[in-house]
């Protein structure tokens, strides 16, 4: 996981809180009678968002781990609800590399590994974009080299 992921998560959280805060603030500025309550709600959401943005990304960065060996892909995520996911190479069906607008800004990428199961997808988020592309290629090559129909 790249250290820029922390900044990426932080800006993601800030953007998601900014939207309702701005809407509420604009409404508060326009609607006189309900101004106090609207601005109060906006302030509460802003405080909550800022708190989350300050606290969670660093924690997430500490607990997110991933590993790719010749046999399997392994991802560990979650702080309160920890989750380990393992998919062996022979069962991997598709490897996607995705870069959203914010990720592009921070030069990051996400690799999604899907298996034949509808519930077994693995996401490795917040990788350096070159590493992500390289990992995608490596996984594709490894998957192709492994026989079997992946079900």
């Amino acid at each position, binding site marked *: 996981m790249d250290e820029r992921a922390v900044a990426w998560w932080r800006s993601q959280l800030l953007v998601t809180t900014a939207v309702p805060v701005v809407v509420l603030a604009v409404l508060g500025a326009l609607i006189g009678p309900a101004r106090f309550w609207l601005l109060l709600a906006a302030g509460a959401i802003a405080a909550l968002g800022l708190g989350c943005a300050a606290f969670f990304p660093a924690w997430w960065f500490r607990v997110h781990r991933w590993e790719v*060996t010749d046999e399997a892909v392994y991802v560990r995520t*979650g702080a309160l609800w920890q989750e380990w996911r393992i*998919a062996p190479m022979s069962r991997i069906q598709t490897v996607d590399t995705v870069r959203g607008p914010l990720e592009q800004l921070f030069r990051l990428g996400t690799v999604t590994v899907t298996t034949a199961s509808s*519930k*077994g997808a693995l996401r490795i988020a917040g990788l350096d974009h070159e590493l992500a592309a390289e990992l995608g290629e490596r996984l594709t090559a490894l998957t192709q080299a492994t026989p079997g129909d992946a*079900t």
Partner: protein
Amino acid sequence: MSEAAPGEDRYVGDGDIGDGDIGGAGRPSVAVPGEEWRRLDRRMLLATAAVLCGVAGGAGLPATVGLAGSRPLWQVLSWVLAGALLLVLGGTAADYVRWRRTRYRIGPERVELHTGLLLVKRRSLARERIRSVDLTANPLQRLLGLVKVRIGTGESTGGSESTLELDLVTRAEGELLRHDLLARAATDAGVPDEGALATVDPRWIRYAPVSFVAPALGGAAAGAVMQVSEWFGAQAEVIDWIGERFRDVSLVWMLVDLALIATVVGAVGALGLWVEMWWNYRLEREPGGTLRVRRGLLTARSVSIEERRLRGIEVVEPLGVRLAGAARVDAVATGLAKDDGDKHADLKTLLPAVPRELADRVAAQVLGEPEPPTGAPLAAHPRAARTRRLRWALWSVAAPVALLAGLGLLLTPVLLYVAAGCAVVLTPLAVLLALDAYRSLGHGVSGAYLVTRSGTVRRTTVALQRSGVIGWTVKQSYFQRRAGVLTLTATTAAGDGAYDILDAGESQGLTFAAEAVPDLLAPFVEPVRTPEARSTEG
């Protein structure tokens, strides 16, 4: 005759369709898959016209009654009849165009279907990817000797895109298609026992009223009475009438009586539904390595599941059915055609609720095992799991009781009595359910199968092929971490996609996962422990 139209791109002549009426047995075109295009059966127009007549009648009668008051009868009748005629003729004409424009071809490699007037859709499926051919026929279609054929591949995505639907062909044609398209894998040797695995036993109907269908139907019936009476603006009268019936008894008894009536109605409905769904039921193994379920009194259904796609079996015991000592058997298979919406559950059901031993035996036969994996002894989970369940039970009772008590303190003391009553009644119930839920928990390995069991209101025992497990997910919440338990999820391509082993002990679960599917988790059991140790020190 059919041989008169062998051309690559020509429609089969009408004479060929006439042949189908006799039974289709003499048609060489299916047995020797030719390159000729075929059409749906012409009698589908009759079916459409009949349905439209029904619709026109259903809509026309109330319209006539409604309009008859304000206008002369002949005028109303002529309007309604003209409308009905327009609907029937228009609909049938549209269907005729569909019939003209729809053609399909069973080639040696591919099955092709062309449809559409303006937007022509050409779809083709590789024959080797066809996993299921299901036939359904409603009573009208059965009368006409027609069936609807759905040809499905193993794709779980894309819904309708991976399914070809032939709506409608003759029954003989449908059977031949089913037989031909699924028969290619007949070389599989060592099929344990062919022929019928189970046929319907009328005594099984005794499990119908104890299923969850009965109260649901009862509630639906009561709701329907209220709804319909509201449409006619007579809801208040209905309520008054009911009040009149029960004038001599107290309110509580009236409610009890009404609930009883609804239950009885629901039970009768459940019996009827069971008869319609499971009459003529027959589960058989066919030479091509497919399992076939045939059932239905009015609407006949035939569902085929390729055994190669079977990854395991699920024995489901809803509470009422379990108390009666029975269980249902579902298939865990990849690429089972998912019918739109509510029928989905029907397609994977291999066996309705039957006595538990029989369910286990049929499960073993379906899987081709000497011993039923679902009946194997399972390892119990740590006591922490029991504590967790008891805690949940108490919280789920405490929360509403506390809410009621709080409101009671604020508003009226009546609510305090209600809260006390709830606490007295619900607490033992919740504790019983929690203890039962803990008793239900279990996991184990039985031969080539991984077995996990959980649930109390709907207890399920899943036997999953160990080679069908394509990944593990280990989840641990904060509370689970404190209790030293974890939830292990085996992901698979079949069925629900993932099956849980809830609240297994930490080392118990990981060792089990490593043992059950050796080459999957084993290289990671060390890494799994290391980052955890790292995170606790940091």
